[in-house]
């Protein structure tokens, strides 16, 4: 049975990855998950310099979902390379670094630095971030800016480049196409959908940052739809995520067009979700006499 999938130059041993920001730097869950079994580990988003993040509360539960406003807290690229990467190098799994910047220049610098490091196998650029050069509007909601920032990053890196799309747009397929045209090896989607919650007793927002990103099963139907639309629009692989809780969900994303999937919020609910999903996909393949997992991608019957 062939579980491998290809994302750019990367060959993953199976299509199941962790979603950035929900799996720390890998070590936090190493007590619960055999990291060697994962298709890839995607680490928490990194920036050139460390970030403090947002004031608490940073997470709040919503019906079948959660809002987070971590504020991209991270230890910075250099600390990551020094303190966290050696741990990850021990494992026989692909390490994908999620990163972001405040400006096109910062994105490019971060990508350049990360590409030069042994043990980093791929990059995922998070473009759902505010752009300080454009009045803090979000990079990934303007096709022109998306094209520019992805192009700038593509110029400085040869390793596999995944562009992580923002779902807070009118036309996700267009944004994916733009990323493809700018040189992305793959797109991943969806990032969280902007949401908010108010405590009616205090009249205050439930998150320190007022708004936050919605994730979890609540958003799955939206994510599946966006993966489906994107798959039809681009030739590069699509990595699907958003509310995947079990192998049925993962297969649903693959049928919609995902080559690989990422598990986010579900890690919090059950830390062995990724492993359960890998096993579940295998069983599904056996039951359905599928020998190559790649056959699932885009297998929806219309």
């Amino acid at each position, binding site marked *: 049975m062939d579980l491998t999938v290809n994302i750019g130059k990367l060959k993953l041993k199976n299509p199941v990855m962790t979603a950035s920001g929900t799996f720390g730097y890998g070590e936090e869950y190493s007590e619960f998950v055999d990291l060697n079994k994962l298709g890839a580990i995607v680490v928490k988003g990194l920036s050139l310099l460390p970030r403090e993040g947002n004031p608490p509360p940073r*997470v709040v539960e919503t019906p079948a979902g959660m809002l987070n406003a*971590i504020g991209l807290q991270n230890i910075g690229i250099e600390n990551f390379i020094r303190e966290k990467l050696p741990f990850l190098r021990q494992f026989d799994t692909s390490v994908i670094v999620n990163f972001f910047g405040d400006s096109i220049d910062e994105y490019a610098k971060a990508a350049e630095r990360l590409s030069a490091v042994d043990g980093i196998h791929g990059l995922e650029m998070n473009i759902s971030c505010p752009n300080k050069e454009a009045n803090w509007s979000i990079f990934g909601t303007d096709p022109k800016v998306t094209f520019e920032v992805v192009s700038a990053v593509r110029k400085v890196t040869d390793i596999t480049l995944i562009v992580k799309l923002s779902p807070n747009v009118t036309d996700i397929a267009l944004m994916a196409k733009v990323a493809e045209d700018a040189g992305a090896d793959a797109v991943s989607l969806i990032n969280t959908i902007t949401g908010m919650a108010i405590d009616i007793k205090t009249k205050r927002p439930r998150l320190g940052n007022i708004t936050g990103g919605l994730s979890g099963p609540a958003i799955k139907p939206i994510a599946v739809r966006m993966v489906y639309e994107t798959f039809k629009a681009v030739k590069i692989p699509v990595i699907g995520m958003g509310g995947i809780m079990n192998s049925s969900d993962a297969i649903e994303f693959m049928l919609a067009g995902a080559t690989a999937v990422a598990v986010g919020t579900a890690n919090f609910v059950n830390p062995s979700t990724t492993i359960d999903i890998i096993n579940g996909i295998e069983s599904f393949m056996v039951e359905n006499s599928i020998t190559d997992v790649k056959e699932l991608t885009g297998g929806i019957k219309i």
Partner: protein
Amino acid sequence: MSKYIRAKITENAPVNKGHNLLVLSPDNIQQHPLPGQFYMIGTDFSYDPLLKRPFSIFREASGELQFLYRIKGKGTERMKEMKKGDTVNLLGPLGNGYPIPGKNLTPVLIAGGIGIASLFPLAEKLSGNVHLFYGARTKNELLMLNELKGLLRKELIISTDDGSEGRKGTVIDALNVFLTSNSHPPQADSTSNFLLYACGPSPMLEAVSKFAAEKGIKGYISMEENMACGVGACLGCTVKTKKGYKRVCKEGPVFSAEEIVWT
């Protein structure tokens, strides 16, 4: 020894109005929890509630894990519905427990409301050789009083906001009286030999911290924040400290009182 445990409910009964004792019998071998550590407990019935909820270990006895919980919202409402024989999933023990006091220090425990759940095992571990200040809004919300009375070898000082039991007022008032007046001479100890341990609502912890700072007493406080993962991965549960944001689930929940920046 896994920290991801399936367990059967052997008891889930009210101990008081709006408060239950949950007793779990884990399926697999697990680490022994320390006082102040906690577990993420999930009822896993549906996706609503979705996330596990953090609960301090109340007691470990004959291989069973006991939790004392207040029914507050969706998660604990659901937990209340669970019956003997039902299964729950839990992660733990997580975080850092209370540091054990040095020999020359007299531990003073300050529990507000359900905060008693995490301080009880500390009192037990210290063989009851602690002063315990225990406050609640009203008599009905004081839990495990008989057990506490049986356990403690020093005084149990109760206060309630409405005066329905013990002193009327907050635990802080009571603590103040204890530490400053002579009405409760702390036997052989001088104030600076006290070591405070506090668990309760945030305003109480802030008051305890200020108090400790003023008096020059060292103190440990158990902090609370909303949690998603409980294992340090999501950065969701941070509190502001003098060295930047720290994770309640990983660097805490027990922090040195002077570390926290109150905002």
